[in-house]
């Protein structure tokens, strides 16, 4: 059952071969066994989950099931869920019980999905290794000595170790794609504005975008059909007609042009990653795609520009954590300013503080033009690069991350080294483009490698189609970490 696709779970539930309560219990039991070692979940609430599962069973019995009714889904702990602790991986929100649902959470709730628990993540989604979580790092199920990637590390671990059939995640600079790559699962960050940010704790609002993680592109399409859609409560939500993200799953790849950016295939990529990515490109060529070389000349500037824009927006967004309306408040203080300073010093971890300080500096008087304005101009150059490249190709393909998962602790004290690993993932966020990662092989240490696919605006269904074709011809996405296979203890 842990192998079943979402469509298989749907038909099993509809045919009463399994109940939603049985399915939820199966995954809750797996979480209970594996979570002490993997730390993929911050909050699990068996009673609440089973109550939702019973309601789903009743709905199925009434003949009123939707596509996800009765299917367990885990949410990244960045999404507010009413009555659930929503921590965002931070001490600041360690006791925050959300009084309302995020748009994404209510969409899954309306569809009848069963909330399985809240997934671990880097604090306030700031990190590429899940090591900045106040609740301790999540661990890679392929090798617990390695990081799962971040910031959506817990979501990726949950899907990879088959602790959940699917999970939600968010991506500001690679936080869906990089952990998906490092854990061997599939994940897609849609075009900016496709998924509502309402109730999703804000990090960098012009870059943040929610998306699903799952075991296959076909499952991602089913999840995105539920997650996506206009929401007036998010001022940047796009008003577009509803679409079926699964409509191109069976579209042939004949004649599809794959752009390989020469900047991505130069120095900097580990040889094991290069070999797996090039083998995947060959496989896609066998399926009828053609490869062309493209150029993204501004791409070396994407990491510097990102690490100005994202911290600048973070410093503004996180100003709301002042110890007054919700969240942590220091126990002792001399006056109001001292209360703010101590509350924030205690409530935020080292990486969050670093980014707030960087953001405060680049926005401060006298430095705005040199940093923030400059970064916004480079953002334009990066977006123009993509527009030009998409004149010559249909999709851009390359590595998701320059290496397979690295060892825990290896980079935690060296933020710049950690930031440089985001080289392939931040540019699509700056441009607002959809991007995904799918498993495409294994590298050193038997650790998974991810293939990144970037599409033009609103090309999600065709990207999912490309990924689905690839997954029909390969079985990388079906590999399970041996310690977590069915029957393994």
């Amino acid at each position, binding site marked *: 059952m842990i192998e079943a696709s979402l469509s298989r779970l749907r038909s099993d539930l509809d045919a009463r071969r399994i109940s939603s309560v049985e399915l939820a219990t199966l995954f809750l039991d797996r979480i209970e066994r594996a979570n002490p070692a993997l730390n993929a979940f911050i909050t699990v609430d068996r009673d609440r989950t089973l109550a939702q599962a019973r309601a789903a069973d009743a709905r199925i019995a009434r003949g009123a099931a939707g596509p996800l009714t009765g299917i367990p889904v885990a949410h990244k702990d960045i999404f507010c869920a009413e009555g659930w602790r929503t921590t965002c991986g931070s001490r600041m929100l360690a006791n*925050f*019980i959300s*009084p*309302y649902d995020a748009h994404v959470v209510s969409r899954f709730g309306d569809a009848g999905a069963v909330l399985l628990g809240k997934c671990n993540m880097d604090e306030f989604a700031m990190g590429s290794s899940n090591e900045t979580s106040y609740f301790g790092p999540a661990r890679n199920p392929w090798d617990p000595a390695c990081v799962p990637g971040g910031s959506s590390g817990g979501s990726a671990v949950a899907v990879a170790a088959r602790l959940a059939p699917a999970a939600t995640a968010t991506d500001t600079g690679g936080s869906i794609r990089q952990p998906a790559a490092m854990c061997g699962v599939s994940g897609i960050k849609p075009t*900016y*504005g496709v998924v509502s940010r309402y109730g999703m704790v804000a990090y960098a609002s*012009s870059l943040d975008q929610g998306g699903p993680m799952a075991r296959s592109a076909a499952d991602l399409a089913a999840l995105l059909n539920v997650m996506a859609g206009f929401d*007036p409560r998010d*001022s*940047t939500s*796009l*008003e577009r007609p509803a679409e079926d993200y699964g409509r191109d799953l069976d579209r042939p790849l004949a004649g599809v042009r794959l752009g390989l950016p020469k900047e991505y295939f130069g120095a900097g990529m580990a040889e094991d990653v290069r070999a797996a990515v090039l083998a995947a490109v060959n496989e896609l060529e066998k399926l009828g795609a053609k490869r062309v070389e493209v150029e993204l000349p*501004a791409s*070396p*500037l994407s*990491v*510097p*520009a990102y*690490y*100005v824009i994202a911290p600048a927006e973070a410093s503004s967004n996180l*100003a709301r954590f*002042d*110890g*007054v309306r*919700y969240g*942590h*408040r220091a126990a002792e*203080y001399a*006056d*109001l300013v*001292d209360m703010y*300073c*101590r509350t*924030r*010093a205690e409530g935020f971890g080292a990486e969050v*503080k*670093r980014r*707030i*300080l*960087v953001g*405060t*500096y680049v926005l*401060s008087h006298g430095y705005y033009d*040199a*940093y923030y*304005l*400059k*970064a*916004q*101009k*480079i*953002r*334009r*150059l990066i977006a123009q690069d993509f527009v030009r490249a998409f004149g010559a190709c249909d999709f851009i393909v390359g590595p998701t991350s320059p290496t397979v998962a690295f060892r825990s602790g290896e980079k935690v004290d060296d*933020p*710049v080294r950690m*930031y440089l690993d985001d080289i392939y993932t931040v540019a699509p*966020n*700056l441009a*607002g483009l959809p991007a995904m990662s799918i498993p495409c092989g294994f590298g050193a240490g038997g650790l998974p490698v991810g293939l990144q696919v970037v599409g033009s605006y609103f090309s999600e269904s065709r990207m999912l189609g490309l990924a689905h074709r690839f997954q029909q011809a390969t079985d990388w996405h079906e590999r399970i970490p041996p310690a977590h296979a069915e029957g393994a203890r």
Partner: protein
Amino acid sequence: MSLTPDQVARIAHLARIAVSPAEAEAVRAQLNGILALVERMQAVDTEGVAPMAHAQDVMLRLREDAVTEADLHARFQAIAPQVEGDLYLVPKVIE
């Protein structure tokens, strides 16, 4: 350029984050490392390039001028650190 200890103290105050003397030097070194990375931006000529603030060049929507929010203050204040008589309590600012 490199931040001085005074600049770090000033930024920390603007950000309302207490930085203890014990951690100040490590914070300064890490911020300088990040700013050195960011400095690479200066190598490219961006004269005449329009800054891009947002992923989509969309106009902000207008909505009908009608009340859409329900009164949820009791629910919201239930999770506040300190509340009295519907008000959020903070240390005294004006004597």
